[in-house]
């Protein structure tokens, strides 16, 4: 998960490094040694690398192939065959609320997780005793090791009863706020509970990436801030946070990607509905794409499967865009951090 570590050994092995001896060695040695078994081996490994790209393309292609019948059949015909579409007027009308629910849940989780994750990352990088820091980082990574189905079980059977009185209180006292309006669910199987569990699940990745970035803050910037009389918090605000801003943004986007695609927590906790509704304390309002697929897939007929795969394609495209944007920011940052 430590993808932001820039590998220092790259230049020397890739042969494009600054040292001319290494480049010359590589060129001369390539002419002499790149034949027979060595050449076969090189092609073999290159093939494996290319296979990764083929695999990613195959994911897209096979999803499109299986979604094609649902996308091309006239909607009236499709709706006759697929029970799922009973209440919608078009395929877009069916996917729309699902996309809305997916994004709302992920956004709520992100709002809760990012400040906490920044706090944890700062705690590990700048507050905890150096000797403890690694161990504390490992504790946070343990959160990522817990299987999602266990989070779902915990969220549904332990967390929901625990937070229900809090949700009831929020509804009674802050009911004028659109998010908290409506009738509060007596079981707390609602989107806000889901968002809490999602926030816990995406904490580790956001923390890990932010921590790496905070640790890269130039020592001199920090010491300069302290020498000017800044308190520790002022040092962090003036030196560490501005330096780490783009890293934190990409970390948050990686977390968003995770939250968008998470299935089990939503499936096990949320009581689903198909509305464009902001009422996160009321049952039967929203549903996410992933949870909907998992819930409907086992009983769907071939056309229904095709429809569900079409919704999966939408999820794939959304997460792909989010992840590519996040990775592009990380990659661009890497180029700049060398100049610092």
């Amino acid at each position, binding site marked *: 998960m*430590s993808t932001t*570590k820039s*590998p220092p050994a790259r230049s*020397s*092995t*890739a*042969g494009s490094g600054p040292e001319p001896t290494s480049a010359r060695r590589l060129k001369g040695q390539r002419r002499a040694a790149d034949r027979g*078994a*060595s050449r*076969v*081996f*090189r092609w073999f*490994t290159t093939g*494996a*690398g290319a296979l*990764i*790209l083929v*695999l990613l393309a*195959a994911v897209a292609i096979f999803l499109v*192939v*299986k979604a094609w019948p649902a996308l091309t059949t006239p909607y009236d015909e499709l709706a006759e065959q697929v029970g799922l579409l009973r209440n919608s007027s078009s395929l877009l009308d069916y996917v729309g609320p699902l996309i809305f629910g997916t994004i709302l849940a992920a956004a709520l989780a992100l709002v809760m997780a990012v400040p*906490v994750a920044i*706090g*944890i990352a*700062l*705690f*590990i990088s700048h*507050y905890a005793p150096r000797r403890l820091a690694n161990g504390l980082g490992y504790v946070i990574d343990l*959160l*990522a*090791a*817990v*299987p*999602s*189905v266990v989070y779902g*079980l*915990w969220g549904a*059977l*332990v967390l929901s009863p625990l937070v229900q009185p809090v949700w009831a209180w929020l509804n009674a006292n802050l009911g004028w706020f659109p998010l908290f309006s409506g009738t509060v669910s007596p079981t707390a199987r609602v989107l806000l509970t889901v968002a809490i569990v999602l926030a*816990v699940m995406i904490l580790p990745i956001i923390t890990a990436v932010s921590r790496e970035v905070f640790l890269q803050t130039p020592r001199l910037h920090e010491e300069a801030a302290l020498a000017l009389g800044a*308190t*520790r*918090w002022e040092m962090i605000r003036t030196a560490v946070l501005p330096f780490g801003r783009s890293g934190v943004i990409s970390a948050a986007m990686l977390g968003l990607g995770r939250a968008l*695609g*998470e*299935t*089990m927590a939503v*499936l*096990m906790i949320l009581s689903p509905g198909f509305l464009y509704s902001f009422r996160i304390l009321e049952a039967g309002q929203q549903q996410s794409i992933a949870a909907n*697929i*998992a819930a409907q897939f*086992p009983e769907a007929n071939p056309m229904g499967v095709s429809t569900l*795969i079409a919704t*999966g394609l939408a*999820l*794939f495209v959304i997460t*792909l865009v989010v*992840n590519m944007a*996040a*990775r592009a920011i990380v990659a661009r940052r890497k180029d700049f951090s060398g100049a610092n």
Partner: protein
Amino acid sequence: MTTTAPEALAGNAELRTLLQQVDKRRHRKDRVMRGLIVAAFLLAVLPLVSVAWTVVKHGIERFNVYFLTHSMRGVFGGMDAGGVYHAIVGTVEITLFAALISVPIGLLTAIYLVEYGRGPLARAVTFFVDVMTGIPSIVAGLFAYALFAVILGPGVRMGVVGSVALSVLMIPVVVRSSEEMLRLVPNELREAALALGVPRWLVVIKVVLRTAVAGIVTGVMIAVSRVIGETAPLLITVGVIDSINYNLFDGRMMTLPVYVYRQFQQGLVPCTPDQANCIATVAYDRAWAGALTLILIVMLLNLVARLVTRFFAPKNLG
């Protein structure tokens, strides 16, 4: 960091107390932020402790040899019976086969990136491996389903489809961790071997891989522990079944995460008072015990992985 030369220390301390009294607001803010940051850390530990505690507390009741060695065949209603053996069999077989697919591909890709990678292909591979780590697990499941549906016709449910789905999730993790380990191998080792006239491919296999083997094994085990808890892709590709199925290539299989989900979904059993051996919460109890089994397997894999690094890592590295 804030101290100056030793002789100035006494005056420095005086100055500091003076400064702290003058600028109370700033120091109060500093203390508040410190409190918030420590609180953020404790807040994150809270769910971890709660999850661990409840899983152990609820799971330990049913977690015994009987539970581990029996399947759910012929178990119905609130019967005080049933176990997880068929799910363990499925999980182990499907995950091992997924590892069998992912490790060669992942390792070869890592070797390509470290030993040969340059130019646009290497950059593309690096970028898309990162992107692949973000593929939602349910999409990986849909892909595996679609792949086998195109080849073998629709409605295929068998273990190997799940393995393919898991390997889509596992390959990028294996590539990332192996790549990091291979980059740690000192370049001097490669150069020394090449200088002795060893062909490049033998250098990679006999020197580079031999040096990095402990780290690679650790990375693979961490990757396995990540995918072993995946539920959604297995739910839609492998299905559910109550009896033992050893055959990866024929018919549905049960897996541990899906078992937990299935038991949870069954909910409370309606018990009438005249039924003697009916436990209303038996399905939830089984779900917790299954979750405990799963967490123990994940923790065991993580622990063994750490031990491998500690005892088999070459001492002159790092």
